[in-house]
């Protein structure tokens, strides 16, 4: 049943992120991308299936049973994804600041048109 909650969470985060992504203001876009990356991170973890109380930390010396642990590989992937996502957020932020400074507006197309 927890699966349904997580699926819903992924869905709502994705929908919110997608909506914001399609908005015209740079700040909306960056928030949208943040929400989308939460959704994607959850999605990747979900791809390893959900397990409670199964942190992939083995006991030194014992022979571990892989089935008793949550899948560590998606977790490692998410870690990489988080780091890269962080870097990209920083870059995007600075680019949108620079765009704002150079074009005088925070519209994604660098135009002053408020109607869009």
């Amino acid at each position, binding site marked *: 049943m927890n699966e349904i909650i997580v699926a819903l969470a992924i869905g709502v985060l994705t929908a919110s992120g997608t909506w914001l*992504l399609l908005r015209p203001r740079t700040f909306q876009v960056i928030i949208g*991308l943040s929400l989308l990356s939460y959704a994607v991170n959850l999605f990747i973890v979900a*791809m390893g299936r959900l397990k409670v109380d199964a942190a992939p930390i083995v006991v030194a010396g014992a022979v571990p049973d892989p089935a008793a642990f949550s899948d560590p590989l998606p977790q490692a992937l998410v870690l*990489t994804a988080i780091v*890269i996502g962080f870097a990209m957020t920083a870059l995007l932020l600075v*680019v949108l600041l620079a765009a704002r400074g150079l074009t005088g507006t925070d519209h994604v*197309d*660098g135009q002053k048109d408020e109607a869009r």
Partner: protein
Amino acid sequence: MTSWVDHLPVVPVVLPLMTGALLLLVDERRHTFKALISVVSLCLLLIAAFALIRSVDASQTHVYRLGNWPAPFGIVLVADRLAAMMVLLVAILGMAALLFSLARWDRAGPRMHALLQFLLMGLNGAFLTGDLFNLFVFFELFLAASYGLALHASGSARVRASLHYIVVNLVASLLFLIGVSLLYAVAGTLNMADLALRAAAIAPQDRALFEIGAAILAIAFLVKAGMWPLCFWLPSTYAAAAAPAAAMFAILSKVGIYAVLRIWLLLFGETSGASAGFGAAALVYGGLVTLAFGAIGVLASQHLTHVAGFSLLVSAGTLLAAIGAGQAAVTAAALYYLVVSTLGVSALYLLIELVERTRGPGADVLAVTAEEFGDAYAEPEPIEETGLAIPGAMAVLGLSFTACALLLAGLPPLPGFLAKFALLAALLGADSVAASAWVMLLLLTLAGLAAIIALGRAGVRIFWASHEPHIPRVRPIEIAPIALLLALCIALTLQAGAVMRYVRDAADTLHTPRAYIREVLPSR
């Protein structure tokens, strides 16, 4: 792991990484020293790439198991003919861009040399890796470096275009992650060869999920490759970028093509069970629409930089449609075409900067203040040196421009013609010719005509119609890389047979994934 040749596959990744890191330790103002390091490193990279291509061509596919972990558990680098060829192409373009930038671009903003090295690292990694998630990492790496290079020297146009570029590619990266993780969820592996093995054995009830994963992954690749309608960011971003950056970008879209080619043939090749050929139609029709759109864009472009950008779309469309045809002969021709069009567009981007220098040097560079940040470094001033006006500069530029135009329009004597011929001959050489092949024949022809019209228009305007002939001040080091690229093109015409033999072998390898799988996973 006994001889140094065994380590060759990792050199194209590690060498630029070390160089880039080293360059970060060198003081910002020591331009000559940095240039020296970069040039030496690129020479080494060229040597390594040559060695790799010779070794791969002579013996067999190199599989390099990083961390000494066996595949499919650890990450492997797989240097086959295709990968080696792409690596060599990267090194060549890198050398051209570097030499060109030494004239002045490397001083238009901080750390350009390092960014270029990281770009090379990312590209080489992407071409060499045999692991899907590692491919993602290298995609991000070269994208990150390309963002840096696209923004190099700042300015309104660059920032605006880069904003679009970055946002679209960030979305594509998210799709990449979704695709990769979905494939992992269904198939349980990230190694491409292993994935290819398991693809055939996917349970019927899981197959839809597997295909969804692949489809989403493909979208991520196609955004980079520049398939319509995912490609609108491309011409404007590349047009805004500094010339050497744009010259490197000519190969960025080819990474998307490469990824599609590699993964599609591995996962959905003829031997991959129920999903064989999945998405071929999408590739073909998408490619054809892209081809048409690129041709229209070429015609509709006022600035040469946009002509170049849309030419990239033309080549992307051509390649995608060719890949979708799913025949080794066509793929071989497509690979030849890929090399040619990359060299051509790259040379054109470099050239445009020189021929449009009539606005006076440094105009683009000085778009923003030279205000310094922090106290550690002084702002590198964009240098207003105007170079030696070499005699006959205009003639040389005109000749180079003509050569680029011939390349892009697919006219003789440059290899664009042979590439186009090979593609069409391969398409028409099949036993039965698909309707899409006829459409492609038509579109390719029209695209060639569009290129002639657009480049003719631009060339006449630039070289013939200027009333007071402004002799641009051009330095030999700026001409040299263009000449290098064009000389390579001529060599590709003269040595067409040998090159085509190589790409044909590469295509055959791609179309028989069993061999690839056996190299990567010898136990299975």
